[in-house]
């Protein structure tokens, strides 16, 4: 049931993400990281693929780019959380890695994706919001688990 709710949450975050400008923080990415911190590897990867597919169909010129990026993010976070289990800075680290992956995708695919200034601002806001979103979503979805 929690997994189902997590997918619904990702869909809602996608709707938010699709209705705002590229300057906004990447809430979908943050939601995916929080889900991946608590679900198993396959579920995290599927959640990432689902979130990425949602973004891809919204801009189908690069169908698959977001799917791969976010699926890899979900899988990576689910694997790496065993290394940094309950570390306070884990969320920031995972967010940074996910943003790096996103930047890499932007660099590889080029045109059609948000411009550099918007990406910079969005990434900074995403990093700033990461601890708060992690804490909030964890409390809402996973019954108050908090980083040690």
């Amino acid at each position: 049931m929690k997994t189902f709710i997590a997918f619904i949450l990702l869909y809602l975050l996608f709707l938010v993400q699709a209705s705002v400008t590229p300057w906004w923080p990447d809430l979908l990415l943050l939601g995916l990281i929080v889900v991946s911190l608590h679900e198993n590897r396959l579920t995290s990867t599927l959640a990432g693929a689902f979130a990425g597919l949602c973004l891809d169909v919204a801009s189908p010129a690069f169908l698959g780019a977001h799917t791969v990026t976010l699926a890899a993010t979900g899988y990576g976070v689910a694997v790496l959380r065993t290394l940094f289990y309950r570390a306070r800075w884990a969320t920031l680290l995972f967010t940074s890695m996910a943003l790096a992956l996103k930047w890499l995708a932007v660099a590889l695919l080029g045109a059609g994706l948000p411009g550099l200034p918007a990406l910079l601002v969005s990434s900074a806001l995403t990093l700033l919001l990461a601890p708060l979103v992690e804490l909030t979503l964890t409390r809402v979805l996973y019954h108050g688990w908090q980083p040690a």
Partner: protein
Amino acid sequence: MLRPAAATWQDRAAWLVIVLGLALLLFPHRFRIFAAQPVQTALLAPLRLVASTSRVYRDLRAENDRLSLLAVRLAVENASLEAATPDTAPAPRLNLVLTSAPVIGRDLTTFEHWLVISRGSLHGIKVGAPVITPDGVCGKVVACGPHQALVQTLLASESRISVIDLRSRVPALARPDRSGRLILDYAPKDSDFRPGDTIVTAGLGIVFPKGLRVGEVTGTPDRPDALFKPVMIRPFADVSRIERVFVISLPAQTGLDTGTVWLENTAPPEVTIPDQPAGQ
């Protein structure tokens, strides 16, 4: 530091998902667009619904405002036409300014006696300006600030309006009773008021122009001992539910006082008073 666990079936399935994602990138551009379109329609349906509902709501609000303004313009035009009876010259066109004003405050004890509107002297509103709705007369402005004005409604206990029966042309003075209706004062006992008659402003005061709809006669109770005929009136404007009103004012360039112009509309064209001999 812990080492990651060895690859399990979950890892392999996850890799498969990632590889499938990569495979999507290899599809031809035309196929991607073709395949994504129906999914996009389904996924973005809630956003489209919200946007569509918001647009419809905005359009309805705009249409409602437009129709309200039109209704009030017609009410004022109708009033001026009714004022121009066949035996008098037609009233001059005043090019009245109708200022739409949302109601932002109410008399908290009754919700009916006083309204606060969010337009004031900076919007051309003056004390004494008549306030109407598409349904009929609402009241008058009794105090005015730069951005807000206080409206005394028909149902305030101090309110008095000179009215006339549209059918029988019998004039009278309307005042509120305590049941949210109006009652006519000084209507002669043999005057012709019937239930269903429309009551309009008489234009005898300095506030309201002639012919604005006020209410409908609901009854004329028989009171043999009364000096005047009691006439009960239901106001057309439901003051307790009004959300937006229109304030009637003259264009700024005329330089005329509203009350003077109303009186000029109803008074005889010329009144001459002979000079009194000195010493008398």
